[in-house]
């Protein structure tokens, strides 16, 4: 119902939409009604009573909470009458009687709704002379969130968020009346991927983050908007910096993408920027040791090496964290360095370091979806890698759509965390252990019934790199045949789509292994990628890098890949460079710079243009602005151009959709048996996370998931076991997941110890007497 109506507030005539909440309608018209428990993205509860206003009713004036009252035509509202003011003072006095005088030591001071509203609407003094309520303060409710129950005003925002939005109701009200407190169950801490959001929406300092506690006052912070770099959703964030250190990241409400929420990884994974392990100077390898040199010498070294090798094959293994501008330059540089005179399909030399890359569904026959489509469609179909672990805020958006009536169809076996929400979960009955459809979807009646003739948004990607594209093709073609479908290509790593849009005929790591010819002379550039650690076939990559004649790494830490390099060029990272990135909607969004370049770091594009110049080749860009101007020309002209100027305009702050032809050069993988389903978990041992102390402990647990039949088969009776494969042996915690097929074990690829497992080979599980909690670094 979007019928427009008029209503009166404090004598002024305002316009609103039928059914809109009064508090929101007033807000839209610039009238602020004070509140604590109401939040735009949560269902209203009318608990704090701060938003009371007077409305005219047939029975006289009534005092009602504006957050639970809908505007109706000709409604007359008073927000500043004497009764309303007294009620506001009363509520604030009530809230303050048990609230501790913690402002001097409380993180929230300076950005605290309770402080602000007390100043604006509160009584001047308190008349309370009794003893305040006391609790032990603060208590940790998880590794990263602390709770101070004395400060809590029981607005229920945190409990409602956990229940309604994230679906992890691990924090709840205990007791009743004046003794009510928020707490967790002793054995079940607030281990949610989204716990940090409760810290942001808490209107007082009751919930605080361990990473930010006592670090700064809000008025000390420099702030800038940016876009998160953790996954391809591209959450809008606000970076908070003080004295050139990133201290905090907050979620911004971008209606089209994250709607205010962040995953805890996106929120807390930034301390690495200031780690002492950060690479600050160019280093060249001499006798297995790294020696610092300057850029002129680096250029010279590289130039000499190229001449020495006489027309070497130059390949690029790139990651997902570069900006569009950087990919644009990488593409140009790669073309220049490609010894093939003309660019033919097989001769492209840039490889993207994500095992889940596949040819995708691009081009005119497929319509690309946006997140808004999730809410507007009738059905969402998911067959992709684990969404909750890899694109967490997309999980929240799917959950929200389902809550509002959209149906959900999930195909296994990696999205078991969506099974509780799904109207139809297709698992072992029709999908084999290696992700093939064992029966045609046209024979699955429930699938046909739920999808036929409906508007569908499909999230499609490889559940495991070993899955063949043709099984996804079967799903997509069936959907296109019987419904009107829009598609999300589910590539989860940060700026994957930026790479797809700006690198000609991008290839994947499979092509990298297959095309490497050790008989030739090879120079390999690794740019912001760590395939030795992160790829399924890391050992193969390691061999290649060790075999290559010269390896140049552009990165921010020494890691399993960069330690194999001959020349390391330290780069800038998140918050230290300006640029644009493209998310899975093809939405281009701005990233902004708020930190200085640390040490002697430069941006990737600065290195490549410098090298090119020293080689006598021409990529002349003086600034990132110039690059952006150049790349803007390559997008479709009827979209709003993703120029910095355009993106900085208020009307475009949420980003702009930009379509560009995408031409991937990725081949089908061979059919393979899947013995161990290796998945990426949200928290892993990437160098950014291990160098962020506040969250590094979250990625230490080693666990596997399997179903009870498999457990029985191996005779495991306890919840720890010993996983072995050949000479490899890992002690793991066991988690039951009865949606998995028999004889399949689900293991995290990004935890220490699992990196050398071969997913195609058999494994063994043994009982173990080692019952210690298995948390190792």
């Amino acid at each position, binding site marked *: 119902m979007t019928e427009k109506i008029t209503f009166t507030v404090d004598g002024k005539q305002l316009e609103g939409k039928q059914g809109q909440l009064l508090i929101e309608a007033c807000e839209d018209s610039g009238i602020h009604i004070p509140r604590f428990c109401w939040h735009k993205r949560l269902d209203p509860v009318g608990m704090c009573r701060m938003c009371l206003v007077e409305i005219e009713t047939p029975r006289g004036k009534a005092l009602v909470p504006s957050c639970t009252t809908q505007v109706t035509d000709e409604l007359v509202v008073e927000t500043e009458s004497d009764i309303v003011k007294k009620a506001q003072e*009363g509520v604030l006095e009530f809230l303050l009687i048990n609230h501790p005088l913690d402002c001097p030591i409380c993180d929230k001071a300076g950005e605290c709704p309770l402080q602000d509203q007390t100043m604006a609407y509160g009584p001047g003094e308190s008349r309370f002379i009794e003893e305040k309520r006391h609790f032990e303060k603060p208590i940790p409710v998880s590794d990263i969130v602390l709770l101070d129950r004395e400060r809590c005003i029981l607005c229920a925002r945190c409990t409602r968020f956990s229940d309604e939005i994230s679906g992890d109701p691990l924090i709840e009200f205990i007791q009743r*009346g004046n003794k009510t407190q928020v707490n967790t169950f002793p054995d079940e801490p607030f281990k949610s991927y989204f716990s940090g959001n409760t810290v942001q929406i808490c209107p007082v300092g009751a919930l605080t983050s361990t990473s930010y506690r006592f670090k700064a006052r809000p008025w000390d912070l420099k702030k800038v908007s940016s876009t998160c770099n953790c996954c391809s959703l591209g959450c809008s964030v606000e970076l908070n910096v003080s004295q050139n250190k990133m201290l905090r990241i907050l979620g911004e409400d971008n209606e089209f993408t994250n709607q205010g929420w962040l995953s805890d990884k996106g929120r807390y994974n930034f301390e690495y920027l200031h780690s002492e392990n950060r690479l600050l100077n160019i280093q060249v390898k001499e006798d297995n040791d790294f020696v610092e040199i300057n850029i002129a010498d680096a250029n010279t070294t590289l130039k000499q090496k190229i001449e020495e090798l006489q027309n070497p094959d130059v390949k690029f293994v790139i990651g997902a964290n570069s900006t569009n501008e950087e990919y644009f330059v990488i593409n140009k540089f790669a073309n220049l360095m490609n010894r093939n005179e003309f660019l033919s399909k097989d001769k492209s030399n840039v490889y993207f370091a994500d095992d889940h890359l596949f040819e995708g569904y691009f081009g005119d026959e497929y319509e690309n979806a946006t997140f808004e489509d999730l809410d507007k469609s009738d059905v969402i179909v998911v067959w992709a890698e684990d969404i909750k672990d890899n694109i967490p805020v997309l999980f929240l958006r799917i959950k929200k759509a389902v809550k509002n009536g959209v149906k959900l169809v999930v195909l296994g076996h990696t999205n078991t965390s969506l099974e509780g929400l799904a109207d139809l979960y297709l698992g072992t009955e029709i999908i084999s252990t290696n992700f093939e459809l064992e029966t045609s979807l046209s024979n699955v009646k429930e699938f046909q019934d739920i999808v036929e003739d409906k508007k569908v948004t499909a999230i499609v990607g490889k559940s495991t790199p070993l899955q063949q594209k043709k099984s996804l093709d079967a799903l997509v073609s069936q959907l296109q045949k019987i419904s009107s479908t829009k598609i999300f290509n589910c590539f989860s790593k940060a700026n994957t789509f930026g790479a797809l849009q700006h690198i000609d005929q991008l290839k994947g790591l499979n092509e990298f292994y297959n095309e490497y010819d050790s008989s030739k002379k090879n120079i390999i550039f690794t740019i912001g990628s760590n395939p030795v650690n992160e790829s399924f076939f890391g050992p193969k990559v390691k061999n290649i890098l060790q075999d290559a004649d010269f390896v140049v790494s552009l990165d921010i830490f020494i890691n399993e890949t960069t330690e194999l390099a001959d020349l390391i060029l330290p780069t800038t990272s998140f918050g230290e460079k300006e640029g644009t990135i493209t998310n899975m909607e093809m939405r281009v969004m701005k990233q902004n710079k708020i930190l200085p370049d640390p040490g002697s770091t430069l941006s990737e594009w600065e290195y490549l243009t410098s090298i090119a110049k020293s080689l006598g080749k021409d990529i002349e860009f003086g600034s990132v602005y110039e690059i952006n101007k150049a790349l803007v020309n390559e997008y479709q002209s009827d979209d709003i151009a993703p120029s910095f100027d355009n993106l900085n305009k208020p009307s475009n702050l949420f980003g702009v959709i930009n379509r560009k032809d995408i031409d991937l050069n990725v081949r089908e993988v061979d059919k393979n048996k899947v013995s161990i389903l290796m998945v990426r978990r949200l928290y892993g041992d990437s160098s950014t996370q291990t160098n962020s102390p506040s969250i590094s402990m979250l990625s230490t647990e080693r666990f596997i998931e399997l179903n009870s039949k498999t457990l029985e088969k191996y005779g495991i009776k306890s919840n720890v076991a010993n996983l072995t494969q050949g000479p490899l042996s890992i002690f793991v915690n066991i988690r039951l997941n009865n949606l998995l097929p028999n004889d399949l074990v689900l293991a995290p690829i990004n935890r220490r110890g699992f990196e050398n497992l071969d997913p195609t080979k058999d494994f063994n599980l043994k009982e173990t007497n080692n019952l210690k909690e298995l948390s190792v670094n």
Partner: protein
Amino acid sequence: MKETLLLTKHMRENPEESHLLKSYEKNGGYKGAKKVLKSGSPELVLEEIKSSNIRGRGGAGFPTGVKWGFLAEDEERYLVINADESEPGTFKDRILLERDPHQLIEGMIITCFAANISKAFIYIRGEYAKPARRVQNAVEQAYEKGYLGKNIFGSSMDLDIVVHLGAGAYICGEETALLNSLEGRRGEPRLKPPFFPAVKGLYNKPTLVNNVETISSVPWIMNNSGKDYASLGVEGSTGTRIFSLSGHINNPGNYEIEMGSSFGEFVESLGKGVRNNKSIKAYIPGGASAPWLRGDQLEVKMTIDDVANEGSMLGSGAVVMMDEDTNLLLAAKSLVSFFAHESCGQCTPCREGTTWLENILERIASGRGRLSDIDLLLDVCDNISPGLTWPPKMTTICPLGPSATASIVSLMKDFRSEVEILLPKKVVLR
């Protein structure tokens, strides 16, 4: 004045067996339900209830016929009997549950027939263990005889009744909090709108929530007629009602009377007067939530409208007499402390305010009161219930908060000196 026995007739005449099905049937029980199911219609039942003008016996006094008319259409509808009698001073539902549970069951059958409901719950407070046992026995007897379950009395109607125990929360007497409790949640009242039980009740389905006494009256109404019921009592307060009388009188107990006599008459003739020949200082006309009336107001008539005119309420029908020796401050403190303990904690004014009021009264009672405390008490009450009127205007979600203020307002209005005496004397410097 005399009692008029409708609800309590069977139990008075057959004390040893009134809770058993055989006694109930021998005395005409289940006849009405059988007749209605055989040859009556839902519209007929609704018509009789409407013409009886019976008002809800739980405390709110809402016309039952009107309430039944609000029930929304749906395949899944429920009847929930509110047997969470926890209002201090009230023990009338207890006798109905303990001594004549079949009367309630018959009323439920007729109600469910009229409303096309096939699943009903009886929510009994957990402290009423014996009444709950009696009701459960009665339910089992009814099932055995085919009066509950599938095709009751051989008709096409099904009805299942589940007896559910509460667990010690007065707030669960509030209908939406009761539904939350029945759903296995915290007993927190819901927002109305949108959660009017008749539209979005139990499991978000249309639900009728009625008091024990209300539904227990249905068999008599159907056996006689709505008009007959309306001819008893007075206009606006028709039929009979069971009043629980307690406090400083000689004969406390439950008395079923037609409304219209005065409280004074009630106390003298049925309560057999005040203990030890004392006089009444103040009395509570309708349960702990009701503002007090003074001892010189005993001529007020026991009807919903008359008591409302005096600024109080007939509420749950619990009459508590306080004699001249009563320490009214401690009485008020006991009442406020009750509400503070029972507050669910959802909304700020009630959660913080009721305990604050309790603390202030405690301070005054233990001799540490201040002169400013009286105004403070009244202002805090005003912040919970603006204007201190009855029925109250609320800053809260439900009337529990304002109920806590009722006794304090009464205390200060009519008995201020009893409080002032405990406060330090104002020092006048010459």
